[in-house]
């Protein structure tokens, strides 16, 4: 016992020494807490419940023992869908924005009003990688949406074919009454294993409406991504969140929604399709700190080949969050006996006047339906595709913007 702890600390300390510390904008007390958390908790090991099914320690030791950080790269061949875009990752200077959006990068003189939000939701005291991002990240971008956008903002994570390690941090503030849609996608051209540790803090002011769509797809299967996200919703804010996770070696999302004030509506939908040896782990937390709000979660998960697809959905209803209405459902399809699928709801309810429901179903494709389609001359693969599309159609359909829907559909391979 003693020995293993020491050994893994030795690894961690040597590992951390390879990361140049360039943190400038993180508030002092946040930084202290983050570093303390890193030291105390260490890299999540196999016994860590939150990382069940995600052998992150062995992944780091095996592929990222030696960290290489590339210098800033030129952006090339990025799939730009919208006129409004900001490129982050290892070339975050490229951007094109219309009025209504203000952007600050680490190189800028960032006003204090923004810095106050950094670490506000204490992700760095809940997750090792959030702490790592807080302690050692050198790329910070602040996006302040001050007016309703008439077209979506595209946030592109760009990584070129150099280095193997990058940490990106994003802070987004959506002003009162403002409506915006953000598409977040990943453009990785690297051929080697790459560790990408991101953290986003999103603040929604009163009566704002945000539709955030994160599309994770890395056809070269080189990315190991850990993505910590927290949304904070003030009075009457509306959040719609779509999490689409497709190809890649690892997609781990910790998505936290803080309902701070009443009359909030948070709707979370997800589609995960595990292929090859991918690991997709969705870890959501809806935290009802205030009552009279509504949260809805629907996640559809498909595991094929030797992939692992995990969903953990946590709902917390605080003591004074009366009249909360929280719903959670996950529907899972296992396509291959060699694949792993695991879905778990977790509820902690301290208020008495609430409506909470959750459910989870796991199965395979309906054999009778498959047979029926085949008796009409449809190939097994096509029949399977028709049934899978029928299975997740309601997740994609919900996205109003046709270009974004098309962007997603194009990338789904069944």
């Amino acid at each position, binding site marked *: 016992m003693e020995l293993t702890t020491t050994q893994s600390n030795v690894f961690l300390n040597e590992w951390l020494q390879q990361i140049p510390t360039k943190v400038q904008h993180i508030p002092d007390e946040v930084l202290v807490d983050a570093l303390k958390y890193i030291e105390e908790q260490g890299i999540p090991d196999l016994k860590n419940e939150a990382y069940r099914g995600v052998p992150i320690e062995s992944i780091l030791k095996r592929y990222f023992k030696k960290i290489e950080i590339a210098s800033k790269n030129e952006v090339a061949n990025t799939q730009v869908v919208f006129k409004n875009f900001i490129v982050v990752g290892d070339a975050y200077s490229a951007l094109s924005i219309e009025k209504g959006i203000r952007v600050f990068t680490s190189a800028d003189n960032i006003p204090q009003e923004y810095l106050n939000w950094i670490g506000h939701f204490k992700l760095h005291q809940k997750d090792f990688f959030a702490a790592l991002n807080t302690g050692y990240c050198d790329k910070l971008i602040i996006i302040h949406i001050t007016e309703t956008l008439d077209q979506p903002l595209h946030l592109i994570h760009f990584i070129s074919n150099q280095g193997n390690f990058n940490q990106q941090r994003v802070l987004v503030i959506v002003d009162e009454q403002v409506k915006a849609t953000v598409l977040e996608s990943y453009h990785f051209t690297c051929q080697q294993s790459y560790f990408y540790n991101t953290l986003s803090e999103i603040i929604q002011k009163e009566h704002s409406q945000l539709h955030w769509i994160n599309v994770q797809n890395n056809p070269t299967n080189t990315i190991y991504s850990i993505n910590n996200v927290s949304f904070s919703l003030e009075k009457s804010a509306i959040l719609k969140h779509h999490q689409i996770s497709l190809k890649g070696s690892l997609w781990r999302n910790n998505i936290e929604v803080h309902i701070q004030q009443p009359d909030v509506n948070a709707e979370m939908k997800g589609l995960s399709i595990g292929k090859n040896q991918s690991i997709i782990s969705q870890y959501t937390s809806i935290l009802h700190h205030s009552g009279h709000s509504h949260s809805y979660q629907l996640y559809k998960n498909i595991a094929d080949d030797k992939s692992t697809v995990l969903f953990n959905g946590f709902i917390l209803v605080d003591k004074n969050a009366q009249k909360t209405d929280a719903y959670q459902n996950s529907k899972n399809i296992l396509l291959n006996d060699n694949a792993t699928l695991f879905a778990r709801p977790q509820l902690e309810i301290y208020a008495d006047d609430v409506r909470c429901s959750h459910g989870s179903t796991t199965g395979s494709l309906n054999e009778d339906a498959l*047979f029926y389609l085949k008796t009409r001359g449809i190939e097994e693969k096509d029949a399977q595709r028709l049934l899978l599309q029928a299975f997740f159609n309601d997740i994609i359909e919900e996205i109003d913007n046709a270009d974004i829907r098309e962007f997603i559909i194009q990338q789904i391979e069944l």
Partner: protein
Amino acid sequence: MTPLLSIKNLHVTVDGNEILKGIDLEINKGEIHAIMGPNGSGKSTLSYVLAGKDGYEVTEGEIIFNGKNLLELSPEDRAREGIFLAFQYPVEIPGVNNIQFLRTALNSIRQYKGLEPIDASEFLKLVKEKQKLLDLPANLINRSLNDGFSGGEKKKNEIFQLSILNPLLAILDETDSGLDIDALKVVANGVNHYHNKENAVLVITHYQRLLDYIVPDFVHILYKGKIIKSGDKSLALELEKSGYDAYKVETTN
């Protein structure tokens, strides 16, 4: 003339139970055959074996369809070779659009035959024509496949698919059950419209009534996994009067 379908000494086991115990049946192009038989005698089993459903193990015998060993083909290839099964219980498939599904089916059959995919407007014309023939409302055929369809609507939809896919052999498993009198006539009309000298129909039914509209050339009685008697359409009329008891005695003797 070689028969379109030739079944010889077919034995089929399901979950270790022998259900079909030596079936012989030949169907030529241009013919209509009817199979009648009590509940549980193996009629649907025969239709599933022809369509290629998993779990039906052929322990003896052979099936030759249009010169090919049917038992070696996958369900989709059987369909492409020209087998069509109208199910006794059509499956509901929410989320799969009826028309898109039919187009996918038609095109994959065409591709197998080396034909180009059907032109969109030509397909639409075909759909309209058959929809009228089967008296199906447009909103129904544009819904999800059989999803929430009434029993009768499902059966009509099967014959709608039959008329669009235009196979060589149509197997109708109790397509008449659950149909009202008008719907029965519409469905029979659809089948007769489809039927010609180049194809064949195998009707499975409990009721002579259907055979007034779809007139068979041959009627077979299936009993406990065997065809115990074959005859012309008058056999169905006899059966209606006497029930199966008279024939059971015949077999035991």
